[in-house]
């Protein structure tokens, strides 16, 4: 180690693109005396620093673990490709930012898994840390590798690489796990003895203790505990009362500009909407709100401790937060005084939100965003997107009258039961908005310039625990054809010159589908891709589609099976052993309703009995409201 308490030498730091990624020492980073703690926890986001540092979930867990006197939690991120190369050449192990010591010194390596395309980076982190890639090969002194985050709701494609998965919200069971770890250490238990005991903590899943059998056609035949005392089902962990839990009052402030260069305030968890393609909407049920008082107290403490110039509200659908006007009134007033900006993602465009946007943004620079996800009303009913053409046109009309000229529309192509007419509806809708502008705003009043509409489409990826988990995905060729249909639909419009269209890449979408609904056999593909040099697959510059195609072939697997196949109603899914509260029967009913174009009401209007009420929390019927 160099004299400045840095793990990397001056030579290396001066040779890499952004040395600030590796030096730690940020404001509010937590430094403890290693001799004063019993458990060292390395918390990793397997992507580059600027991405990883922007993630709220990791900040919450970091804050919680460090609030325990006996634990020191430190951060680890994927080294960027330039440092990755140097570390391999010179055999330099991956290190934790706070202590600037190797990850290998930690008792736990926690990895948050937010998107499928980071799977190869998980292997990068393990490999560079000097930890065997597969759980079964690890020795007594290797850290316990524990995974969390949305992708762990189908952990099977990465099951081999983890000792434990934590299924659900991280706030609830870590204390118990650490107590168990300390006890096992005192008693001199082996790694396996500890893992068996850990497997009986609610929410924890130890993949090594399960037997998997397949049918001849490759589908799952059975999934059963291989060790006595290990539960057959793992139920997700849920924080019942969000006011009564951890929230980082002093988040770490990075030196370099990160994706989130601001205070992030999570106002609620879950979503009332139930869009049928949306995984987050099911995983985080039931909807739970934080109280206004708690939020305001928290946000001002965070602004004081960080010095950030901006705060952003975060949730899946902020407009559905019941106390939004009250929260914003106070926040806007105080932030004006403090010269702090407010950003408001995921608002539904209506009179209220436009009024708020008018207060916090520069109309000339800001844009109005809609996410109809589907071009026709028929298809919006299929996906249960409770947003009508009338909502969109009236919202857009009000925005036009308010002086906005930049509009963004997000759609998905390749939804189940989609027809070409649905896709052509995208152009129609965009054109109607443009026509509204030219009708409403006379030539001499167009001071902010003419309207500009950006239409972006991504491709649908079926995800576990959604109504569409049975659905086939389109092939890349079909995706591209649909994108052309969409483009043609726009080009036919009268106002086509005002509409800009861009679409996302189709190759990664099918690989994402493979990883999202994969089983344990898929882990061989991930390992192969990594061995062929694949890292940073979430970055288009580093994603090599051929590498994946070859690896799939070499493993004797196919996209036809994992991505493009429609599942039978009664197929046993690799993730069925996880209980998210929402029942498979409910999801199947939703799939059938989708086929008929029938909508399901949102949780606030009417409970549809999805099963999540069993958590006894949030919005669900039968929940006794506490004070507030």
């Amino acid at each position, binding site marked *: 180690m160099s004299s400045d*308490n840095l793990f990397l030498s001056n030579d290396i730091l001066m040779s890499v693109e952004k*040395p*600030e990624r590796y*030096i730690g020492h940020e404001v509010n980073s937590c430094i403890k005396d290693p001799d004063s703690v019993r458990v060292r926890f390395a918390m990793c986001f397997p992507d580059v620093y600027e991405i990883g540092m922007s993630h709220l979930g990791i900040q919450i867990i970091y804050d919680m673990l460090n609030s325990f006197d006996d634990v020191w939690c430190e951060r680890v991120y994927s080294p960027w490709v330039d440092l990755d190369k140097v570390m391999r050449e010179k055999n330099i192990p991956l290190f934790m930012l706070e202590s600037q010591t190797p990850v290998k010194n930690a008792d736990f390596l926690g990895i948050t898994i937010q998107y499928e395309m980071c799977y190869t980076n998980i292997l990068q982190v393990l490999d560079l840390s000097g930890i065997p890639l597969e759980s079964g090969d690890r020795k007594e002194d290797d850290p316990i590798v524990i995974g969390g985050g949305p992708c762990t709701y189908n952990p099977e494609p990465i099951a081999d690489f983890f000792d434990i998965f934590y299924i659900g919200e991280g706030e609830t069971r870590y204390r118990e796990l650490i107590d168990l770890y300390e006890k096992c250490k005192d008693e001199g238990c082996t790694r396996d003895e500890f893992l068996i005991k850990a497997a009986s903590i609610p929410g924890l899943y130890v993949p090594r203790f399960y037997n998997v059998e397949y049918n001849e056609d490759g589908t799952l035949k059975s999934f059963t505990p291989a060790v006595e005392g290990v539960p057959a089902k793992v139920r997700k962990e849920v924080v019942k009362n969000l006011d009564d839990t951890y929230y980082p009052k002093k988040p770490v402030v990075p*030196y370099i500009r990160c994706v989130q260069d601001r205070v992030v305030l999570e106002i609620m968890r879950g979503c009332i909407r139930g869009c049928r393609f949306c995984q987050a909407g099911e995983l985080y049920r039931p909807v739970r709100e934080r109280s206004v008082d708690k939020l305001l107290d928290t946000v001002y403490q965070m602004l004081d401790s*960080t010095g*950030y110039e901006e705060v952003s509200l975060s949730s899946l659908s902020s407009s559905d937060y019941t106390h939004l006007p009250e929260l914003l009134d106070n926040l806007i007033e105080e932030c004006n005084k*403090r010269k702090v900006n407010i950003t408001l993602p995921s608002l539904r465009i209506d009179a209220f939100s436009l009024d708020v946007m008018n207060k916090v943004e520069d109309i000339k620079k800001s844009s109005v965003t809609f996410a109809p996800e589907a071009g026709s009303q028929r298809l919006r009913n299929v996906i249960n997107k409770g947003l009508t053409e009338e909502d969109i046109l009236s919202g857009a009309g009000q925005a036009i009258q308010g002086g906005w000229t930049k509009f963004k529309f997000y759609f998905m192509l390749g939804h189940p039961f989609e027809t070409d007419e649905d896709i052509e509806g995208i152009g129609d809708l965009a054109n109607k908005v443009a026509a509204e502008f030219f009708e409403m705003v006379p030539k001499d009043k167009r001071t902010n310039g003419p309207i500009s509409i950006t239409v972006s489409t991504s491709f649908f990826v079926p995800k576990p625990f959604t109504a569409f988990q049975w659905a086939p995905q389109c092939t890349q060729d079909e995706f591209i054809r649909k994108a052309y249909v969409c483009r043609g639909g726009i080009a036919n419009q009268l106002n086509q010159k005002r509409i800009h269209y861009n679409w996302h890449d189709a190759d990664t979408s099918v690989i994402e589908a493979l990883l999202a609904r994969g089983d344990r056999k898929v882990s061989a593909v991930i390992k192969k891709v990594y061995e062929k040099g694949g890292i940073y697959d979430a970055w288009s510059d580093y994603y090599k589609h051929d590498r994946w195609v070859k690896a799939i072939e070499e493993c004797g697997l196919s996209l036809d099976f994992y991505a493009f196949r429609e599942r039978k109603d009664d197929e046993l899914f690799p993730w069925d052993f996880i209980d998210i509260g929402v029942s498979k029967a409910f999801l199947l009913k939703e799939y059938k309703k989708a086929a008929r174009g029938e909508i399901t009401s949102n949780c606030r209007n009417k409970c549809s009995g999805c099963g999540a009420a069993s958590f006894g929390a949030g919005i669900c019927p039968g929940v006794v409201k506490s004070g507030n």
Partner: protein
Amino acid sequence: MKKIRVRFTKHGAVRYIGHLDVMRYFQKCIRRAKVNVSYSAGYSPHQIMTFAAPLGVGLESEGEYMDIGVEDENPDCAAIKDALNEASVDGIRIKSVKVLPEDAGNAMASVYASSYEITFYDDKKDDCPGTEKVRELIERMNAMDHCVYHKETKKTSRDIDLKEFIYELKVSDSEDNPVINMTINSSSADSIKPGFVMEFMCGLDNIKLPVNALKITRLDMFTQDEEGNLKSLEEVGI
């Protein structure tokens, strides 16, 4: 609005933070310290602040400067200094806070020269000249009328007479690792860097320094007073 001048240090890990990020760092640090900073008018107001000459990544410093506007009639400099230090990381320490006279030029425009202390990194010093050698080379340089350094960048290549830019160059008595002090012009973009001087000096004896051998600390920055003498930016404040 009153202007105050803040002198700060940059040591250890934070020397890898680039100039733009140091500016962003202070925007937040000033807010944490609750300094009554002035803001520009307009839709997205920003703090009134100016920095003196940027410090290269990897260099340390005892003498960095920023000027900030404050809304206090009589700024309490001691209190501001304490508050900033309280809100700052270990590697960045506030050495002084002084009120600037109305007619003082801003930190950026008034920089004329900088002084540096240079040694060799421990792991490189065996391949670098020792104190006696450096003393001999400096004497040779000081005796020369011109020291023409050939500067090559991706786009341009030109010859610079370093002599025109060096005000002081000496080595102090130290055991094995020489401690070199130099004061050089840094008034404009085409000023020279301490590395040029070191490279030229070693070149006199055909010594090629290993890469990243120099451990450079900026000691202070200077402006020029009416008589043409160098005056520390700190001394401009009252």
